[in-house]
């Protein structure tokens, strides 16, 4: 057998093995994408956070709390970025949250349960406006829900 023929045979063998290996991969159950990917990545998260903040600012029951933030564009920008990073990192995305802990950020504010519920309502409205599926919505709320104890009544 000529060396040319041997090489051709070897290449064909490698090709067949690769196809079989890929086929096997297809058969194994796919690992579910992270919540970050399922939400649509950073652009989708930032769109939802923008809508969420806009909903909060329009909401008379809690917007007084954010008066100083809205009055100062740099402060509003920082809060927006912190919220985006927090949601992105919590959802398993490539972000790092560099803001205060929830306890540090909300201590001294005496936030009531009703205010917390109003804010969550504004978040749910934002998620619904972007037609985020129920599963992803619940996963996101489950990440933020446990923060309640560090936010309410501090």
């Amino acid at each position, binding site marked *: 057998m000529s060396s040319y023929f041997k090489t051709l045979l070897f290449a064909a063998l490698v090709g067949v093995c690769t196809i079989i290996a890929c086929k096997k991969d297809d058969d194994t159950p796919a690992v579910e994408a992270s919540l970050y990917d399922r939400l649509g*990545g*950073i*652009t989708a998260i*930032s*769109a939802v956070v*923008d*809508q969420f*903040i*806009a*909903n909060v*600012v*329009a*909401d*008379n029951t809690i*917007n*007084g709390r*954010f*008066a*100083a933030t*809205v*009055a*100062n*564009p*740099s*402060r*509003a*920008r*920082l809060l*927006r*970025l912190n919220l*985006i*990073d927090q949601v*992105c990192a919590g959802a398993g*995305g*490539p*972000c*790092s949250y*560099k803001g205060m802990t929830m306890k540090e950020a909300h201590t*001294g504010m005496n936030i009531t349960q009703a205010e917390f519920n109003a804010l969550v309502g504004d978040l749910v409205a934002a998620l619904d406006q972007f037609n985020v599926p129920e599963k992803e919505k619940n996963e996101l709320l489950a990440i933020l829900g446990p923060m309640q104890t560090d936010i309410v009544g501090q």
Partner: protein
Amino acid sequence: MKVLKFSMVMISAAAMLGWLILRKPASASDILEPVCYTAFISHASDPEAGQALALAAQEWEGVSAVSYNAGSDLLVIAHTDLWTPATLKSRLSTLTSTPPQIKQFTPSPGAQCPVPVEIVEMIPGFLLSLSIFSTIVLAGLMVFKRKKALVSLYQ
């Protein structure tokens, strides 16, 4: 000269350390354009008119989110630097007979950070610049000293 060099090394090292501690680690959000929020009292005749304003504004370039709350009659627009509150107001005014009014939020008096956020945000960048600057000065001093030594060697 020795004191100057030592000071430069110390400043460079301290500034670099400060920058390393304060810098924001790379994040996917770094690519996002900054956004501001402007609130208007819409003065809409009815909730449908307010909602129509919101839907119209949603389509404008540089607007990333719009929220209209019928209960508060507030129309809030999240926008990039393409817009200012004044330009948004004049554009909105072309869509309605009763021009919306910019809502001024007055911060409640109370304990607030005395250092403006803008300054706090600038600190890491300032520290990095300081570190780079003192390293360049240090390198300059060393080159200067070497040149002087070479010149004296050939003389």
